[in-house]
């Protein structure tokens, strides 16, 4: 590989994408810690996909395409849904690679054409966008292609086509946003937009469970035959050569054009990847009190970190179908009030939210030495941090309790009582065991402490069940409450032992 060449630059991008932004240990242990989870994650779909592909045997002459008859409508809908989903990851990837990482000054200062640098970065983004889907689809698809169903090559190829198109559009869109709004607002818009897309796609996949009528209508629209050339993506995915070649051509042209135009605009704008921001005049009022100082500081930092907010919002979005199912289940069972279901949902939300915020304010503290140097005891600071971590979750609990109070006072009381305990215990658990890390490691915090991640989920489930049963007036509420209490007691004991 020629240093400075296109392939060399792509390898550089992929290496950075693979390593992420977290703190990595060095040496073979570091390599193992970084690589083993990825290999394990990849091994399941690879081995499973190849195994399943082989198990289906050599295709019979009548089933040479994908092996089953399916109209182009649903296939097209899947291809477009995948493209939309990829748009969210591509936008984030472009933002990080082109406007955040800050290695562009180094690369563009090197005696390498800017267009080559940005083309390599574009390919790097496209590959990282496609990789999770390729890992899942390619082992099975390519195995089936070898065993007589070449149509599957179309499916695998269309994943790459989707990723290239999504990246091309993301380069243009994100570049336009940065030029129009400035780096910081553009970052907020992109991150919130990406989260909204991701959340919407997830909710759409869950729609048959909690909104069956709407899902049925959407499905009816999707299965209708699409006019040419709108049906090209579907026909390409089904392995038809001409549409497949056309889609590949369009994707390659789009990403080349986006990278070239992006390179020109990028170099002309002088965006070094870390763009400054216009200062807005704000009034800062000085107030007394340590707790207030810490709460205000933490809330300011959280509010100014859109990536963090979107990640937290996504975690909550993933709970919406379960909450909706809970409410629907009660109505289907003849219950008149949704109060207990709302109590459970609000409690689960509050538990996970408090845990997330506790990690942010305790483990991801930017200046621990400043706090350690302050003339305050560690216990006083820890208490203030706990208040900061639970401020928003407890507000959410209060809102849920007020909302349900008029129709179901018992559920309101359960929401408030259990919700408060749940939020505080979840925050305490995280504060005890959260390992120091930068805020950017929020998504990977569960990897840093698997036990705490699992403990947090069990705690959320236990407190949610307690709230639900208590709202129904069931004495069985004591059982999940006992489970939660045992988790906290065990954690306290483990902490004491560790200390």
């Amino acid at each position, binding site marked *: 590989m020629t240093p400075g060449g296109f392939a060399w630059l792509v390898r550089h991008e992929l290496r950075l994408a693979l390593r992420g932004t977290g703190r990595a240990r060095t040496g073979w242990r570091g390599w193992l810690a970084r690589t083993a989870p990825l290999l394990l994650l990849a091994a399941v779909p690879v081995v499973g996909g190849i195994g399943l592909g082989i198990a289906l045997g050599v295709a019979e002459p009548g089933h040479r395409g994908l092996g089953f008859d399916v109209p182009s409508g649903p296939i097209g809908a899947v291809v477009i849904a995948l493209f939309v989903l990829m748009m969210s990851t591509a936008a984030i990837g472009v933002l990080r690679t082109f406007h955040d990482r800050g290695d562009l000054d180094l690369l563009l200062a090197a005696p390498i054409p800017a267009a080559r640098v940005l083309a390599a970065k574009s390919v790097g983004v496209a590959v990282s966008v496609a990789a999770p889907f390729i890992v899942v689809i390619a082992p099975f698809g390519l195995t089936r292609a070898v065993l007589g169903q070449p149509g599957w090559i179309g499916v695998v190829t269309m994943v790459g086509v989707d990723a290239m198109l999504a990246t091309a559009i993301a380069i243009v869109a994100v570049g336009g946003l940065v030029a129009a709004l400035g780096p910081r607002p553009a970052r907020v818009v992109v991150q919130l937009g990406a989260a909204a897309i991701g959340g919407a796609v997830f909710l759409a996949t869950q729609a048959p469970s909690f909104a069956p009528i709407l899902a049925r209508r959407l499905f009816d629209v999707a299965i209708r035959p699409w006019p040419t050339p709108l049906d090209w993506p579907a026909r390409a995915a089904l392995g038809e050569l001409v549409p497949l070649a056309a889609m590949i051509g369009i994707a390659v042209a789009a990403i080349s054009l986006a990278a070239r135009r992006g390179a020109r605009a990028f170099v002309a704008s002088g965006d070094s990847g870390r763009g*400054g*921001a216009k*200062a*807005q*005049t*704000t009034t*800062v*009022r*000085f*107030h*007394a*009190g*340590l707790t*207030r*100082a*810490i709460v*205000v*500081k933490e809330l*300011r*930092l959280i509010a*100014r*970190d859109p990536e963090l907010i979107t990640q937290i919002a996504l975690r909550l979005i993933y709970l919406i179908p379960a909450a909706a199912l809970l409410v629907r289940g009660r109505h289907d069972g003849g219950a008149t009030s949704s109060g207990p279901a709302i109590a459970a949902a609000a409690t689960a939300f509050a538990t996970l939210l408090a845990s997330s915020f506790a990690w942010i304010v305790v483990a991801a503290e*930017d*200046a621990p*030495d*400043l*706090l*350690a*140097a*302050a*003339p*305050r*005891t560690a216990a006083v600071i820890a208490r203030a941090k706990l208040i900061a971590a639970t401020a928003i979750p407890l507000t959410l609990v209060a809102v849920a309790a007020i909302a349900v109070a008029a129709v179901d006072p018992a559920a309101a009381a359960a929401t408030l009582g259990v919700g408060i305990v749940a939020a505080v215990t979840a925050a305490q658990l995280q504060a005890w065991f959260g390992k120091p890390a930068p805020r950017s490691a929020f998504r990977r915090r569960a990897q840093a402490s698997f036990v705490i991640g699992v403990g947090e989920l069990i705690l959320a489930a236990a407190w949610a069940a307690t709230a639900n049963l208590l709202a129904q007036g069931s004495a069985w509420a004591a059982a999940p409450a006992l489970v939660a209490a045992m988790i906290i007691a065990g954690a306290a004991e483990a902490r004491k032992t560790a200390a």
Partner: protein
Amino acid sequence: MSGTSSMTNALTITGLRKAFATVAVDGLDLTVRRGELYALLGPNGAGKTTTLRMVAGLLPPDAGSIDIMGVDAHADPIAAKRQVAYLPDEPLLYDKLTPLEYLDFVAGLWGIDPATAAATAEDLLRTLDLWDQRDARCETFSRGMKQKAALAGALIHDPALLILDEPLTGLDAGAARTVKDLLVARVRGNGTVILTTHILEVAERLADRIGIIRAGRLVAEGTLAELRAAQGEAGASLEDMFIALAGSQKPAKPGDGA
């Protein structure tokens, strides 16, 4: 320690010891008088930063005692910390806060009256030429501006003992002059400053006394004239003496560990 020394000394370190994989500070004895600017010099890994972190209450010593303004830092760490401000070479800042918000936070940590804190914050930001950037987030600042914002944070509670680890790192000539003037003014106002620096000219021109440590021990201490006399070289520069005493060809670099 005696009552008289606690009246005259800002900092008294006795038999201080700290070991990690190797011994970083090895029975260090050091005294800094009230109202003086003391420069602590030493080669990389001599134990300067470890010593300062122990004085700031960030590291517990393995042995020895630290007395700050007559307060035993081990017996009453909170009272001791109230007297101290510590500014490491990497500024203790929050990128997403503005300088004013940062100062509001630090003032809250040290329990400063809000009206006093607001007035001091404005005064400090104006002195350090950051007032026009008071509403910009620190993430947009240059290294020098961050260093100045962190210095403002260190001064917001008017500490009796100001500890600075490489305070001039990353500052341009104008900003460095501002900071040096500010330190001199504090010392004239009977404040006490301890700093480490790799710029020996700064120590030579600003410091009332200079201490040189090597391998965690104080190997020389005194005014520039006293150091020269002890070395028996009347015209020697601080650099010559540093190299002779610290046993290093190069003075410490910014951000050196230990």
